[in-house]
């Protein structure tokens, strides 16, 4: 078994067309993706808009099955939605009729084994959610409604919702794309700290190269549709990293190098 080699995410020659008709015409959303990550690795996928980054996410969560090739997560071939995954998107998608706390608790009302014990152990779960909210700086906002929070706070809550069931993998689809630059950098650190403490696997899809270099262990560059992985770049910057590092020469050089790869995609 290839999957037994200690890889967490393992894509082998994965192709995906959204339906049979497109497959027959050889029109794929992503092509020939081969990629693997170590357990606990933080990877970022960068590329131009519409390059199939979101398709990649759907494959990694089991929401879509590949047309060709195979996807394994944690040594298991993916055959359906994966419960060990938490997801957050550019839009926080919090439910406006629930308080921040109840929004964060939502996954526990759905995913087993929490679901069946939710009513009985609600106090305990609420305490856990409060603790998690406190670690991202949302102490005191548990009983506020989403529309009473700023965009950055909503996004923090959304990340908490993705992590409440202690998933082994966190998938983030341009999670900071709609935030202002200062809030974005603040949330980079929030994510960095959560990851440092819990060491879940992260796939961060973004088009912000500085974000990718600052946070990730490995950055993958994807081409325009059909999406292919054009380059893989290890980020050798020492951890823990803080924002100062983004003004240093090695950091800028890495960003610059990735930028050039994207530039060459555009020309091709």
């Amino acid at each position, binding site marked *: 078994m290839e999957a037994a080699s200690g890889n967490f995410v393992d894509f082998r020659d994965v192709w995906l067309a959204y339906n049979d008709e497109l497959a027959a015409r050889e029109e794929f959303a992503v092509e020939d993706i081969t990629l693997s990550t170590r357990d606990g690795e933080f990877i970022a996928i960068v590329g131009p808009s519409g390059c199939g980054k979101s398709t990649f996410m759907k494959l990694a969560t089991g929401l879509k099955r590949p047309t060709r090739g195979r996807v394994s997560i944690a040594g298991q071939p993916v055959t359906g*939605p994966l419960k060990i995954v*938490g997801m957050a998107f550019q839009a926080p*998608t919090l*439910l406006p*009729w629930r308080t921040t706390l109840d929004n964060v608790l939502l996954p526990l009302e*759905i995913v087993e084994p929490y679901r069946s014990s939710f009513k009985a152990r609600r106090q305990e779960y609420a305490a856990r959610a409060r603790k998690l909210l406190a670690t991202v700086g949302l102490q005191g906002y548990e009983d506020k409604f989403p529309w009473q929070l700023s965009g950055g706070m909503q996004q923090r809550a959304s990340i908490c919702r*993705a992590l409440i069931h202690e998933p082994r993998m966190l998938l983030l689809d341009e999670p900071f794309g709609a935030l202002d630059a200062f809030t974005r950098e603040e949330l980079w650190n929030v994510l960095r700290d959560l990851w440092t403490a819990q060491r879940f696997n992260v796939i961060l899809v973004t088009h912000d190269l500085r974000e990718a270099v600052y946070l990730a262990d490995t950055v993958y560059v994807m081409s325009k549709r059909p999406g292919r992985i054009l380059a893989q770049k290890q980020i050798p910057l020492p951890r823990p990293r803080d924002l100062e590092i983004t003004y240093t020469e090695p950091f800028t050089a890495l960003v610059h190098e990735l930028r050039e790869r994207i530039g060459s995609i555009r020309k091709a």
Partner: protein
Amino acid sequence: MASRTAERFAPLILLAGILLLWEIVCRALSVSEFVLPTPSSIAVALVEFAGPIVTNAWRTFWTTMIGFGLSIVVGVVLGFVIGSSKFAYSAMYPLLTAFNSVPKAALVPILVVWFGIGAGPAILTAFLISFFPIMVNIATGLATLEPELEDVLRVLGAKRLDVLLKVGLPRSMPYFFASLKVAITLAFVGTTVSEMTAANEGIGYLLISAGSSMQMGLAFAGLVVVGAMAMVMYELFSVVETRTTAWAHRGSNAH
């Protein structure tokens, strides 16, 4: 604060102004009572025939409420079905739209054949005319879920029903209450229209008999009563709406 009070009383002031103008025009041009009675003679008729008006209004009220209750049940169930399944939507929606464009007054004679003269046709007409907006609004609320949110929940192993109950239904509640306000006024229209040809009781019946005996004051009094009942129910649902779905109306009331 002053402008708030003014806003609250504005409809009453406008109503008073219209009534006053109506009275003045009728008197100045000496319009015949048989063509257009003055507001004051309508008021006199309201008092004079208070007994029969109340009996008939009560009849119209409860038939409307039964029909409206039916349309909530059927509207919510149908809306849930077509809003949660694309297949059911494409199968049923064109037929329902076609049915909705049939004038409901035209169904009354058929309902009379089936159920006889009385409350039956009135209840059913109220129901048939008012379930459609409820159904459409529930369906819209369910069908416009954010796909990202659906993904978040599906990854966790949520069944379609989980998504509908946890997210879809709460989300469609503001649409639901908005539709109730439209539907209740339609239900009163349905009952009244049906009573005009297929009942021996109710405001519709009162309108027809007052008209045929040239008691224009009474006819207008009947209109006033049915309008007032519909308005009160509308306001009632407005209050329920803002109470239960405040999260959707946060722009309009300061929090």
